[in-house]
């Protein structure tokens, strides 16, 4: 049996969702009454390509335990190629933060379309489970 402080702790996860796909996907999950972990707080962004790595770092510094970035599937970007550009930033930033010692899984990425309410709920559940396993973020978090 795990001790109590671990079992009652719930991770805080910040999700950056693109306006055109993933946010609509989250909406669909809601209107379809699909259940998912209540740990995420959503910030709607115009495109996953809009994510400046500063946003992710600022979120981690300000007290979230993990970050999820979600955008349109390749080829579906409302701005043609925003998610492709974002993908390169994501890949390099993820590898870099892991090299520095931020645990793998703290920042996660997904493609969720407007029709994938169920996938959205699954992604959120998976991310929440991963971050729960990692425990509270101790590095980098301020105060």
């Amino acid at each position, binding site marked *: 049996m795990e001790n109590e402080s671990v079992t009652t702790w719930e991770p805080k996860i910040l999700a950056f969702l693109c306006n055109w796909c993933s946010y609509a996907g989250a909406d669909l999950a809601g209107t379809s009454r699909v259940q998912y972990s209540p740990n995420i707080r959503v910030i709607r962004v115009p495109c996953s390509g809009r994510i400046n790595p500063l946003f992710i770092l600022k979120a981690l510094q300000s007290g979230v335990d993990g970050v999820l970035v979600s955008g349109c599937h390749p080829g579906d970007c409302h701005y043609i190629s925003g998610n492709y550009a974002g993908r390169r930033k994501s890949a390099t930033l993820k590898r*870099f933060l892991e090299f520095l010692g931020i645990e793998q899984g703290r920042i996660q990425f997904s493609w969720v379309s407007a029709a994938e309410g169920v996938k959205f709920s699954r992604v959120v559940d998976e991310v929440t489970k991963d971050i729960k396993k990692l425990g509270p973020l101790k590095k980098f978090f301020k105060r």
Partner: protein
Amino acid sequence: MIQQQLREKAKELLSNKTVDLIIGFGEWTLPLRTTPVFIRTPEGAESLVWNSFCENNLTAYLHKFSRLKIGLVVKGCDARSVVALNLEKRFPNHPPLLIGIPCQRLVDRKKVKKAVKGEILQAVEQGDLLLVKGEDVNVTLKREDFLYSVCQVCTHRTPHQAHILIGDPVEEVSPVEAHPDVVALEGMFPEERWNFFEKETSRCIRCYACREACPMCYCAECFVDSSRPRWIEKSFSPSDLAFYHIVRAYHQTGRCSGCGACERACPMDIRLTYLTQKLNQEVKDLYGFETGIQPEAAPPLSTFDPEDKQEFIK
């Protein structure tokens, strides 16, 4: 010999007004070092020097003298910075004239200082040897044992994009495969890596010498100076120091030529190059890109390939 050729070339370029200003290296007051010199007259060219202590990446000065036609003395890495800046459209009027010198790899003054007792008063290069004199010491060191770690991993020592090449091109090999700090850290647990990073950055005094010494740091407003939004505070919490160093390094992704000017500029001996070297390695691995080698290739983070790896995306 190279030094003499360099002076003659500089004299010629200034005499026939090909350039207004030559930025190169000159001898100055401290041993194991040189200083940037700004030469406007043919006679002034006599003060140019070339040796293993020409540590600055003079490309950083191009932002400061953007109105002049400049002749810039460059090593392999410096020339790569110029290529990278050119891709970022930094020279709309006068791209600099590059006077390239194949680099013999630079001597790490900090390593030499640690090997010699007391203050070093004089250091002279003689072939592969370094003759170092102090108040009561007089030692001969092997140059090879005291190279900067970034220089040890460098393969592109010949400035291929130079307009003028002084000396013969050198072979594209490096004595060491990967940056020793990167290798060491990759073998550690995440916890240890973070502790290492935090310990190094804890010495930071936020003088921003690493930023100013870097030719690629030319943003009109650096994120640390922004007040709206204020990304990080001005004081010294470990988190804010880490934030600065993560972003400073990450902003170099696909732009860093690996010259090591950041680390050399640091008065607190903070190890910095392992961060950018790691990023260089990742960019090469993911996108096959090396900064400043192909003059036409778009920087990796400003382009994409629909087939880019995405196994990490759910």
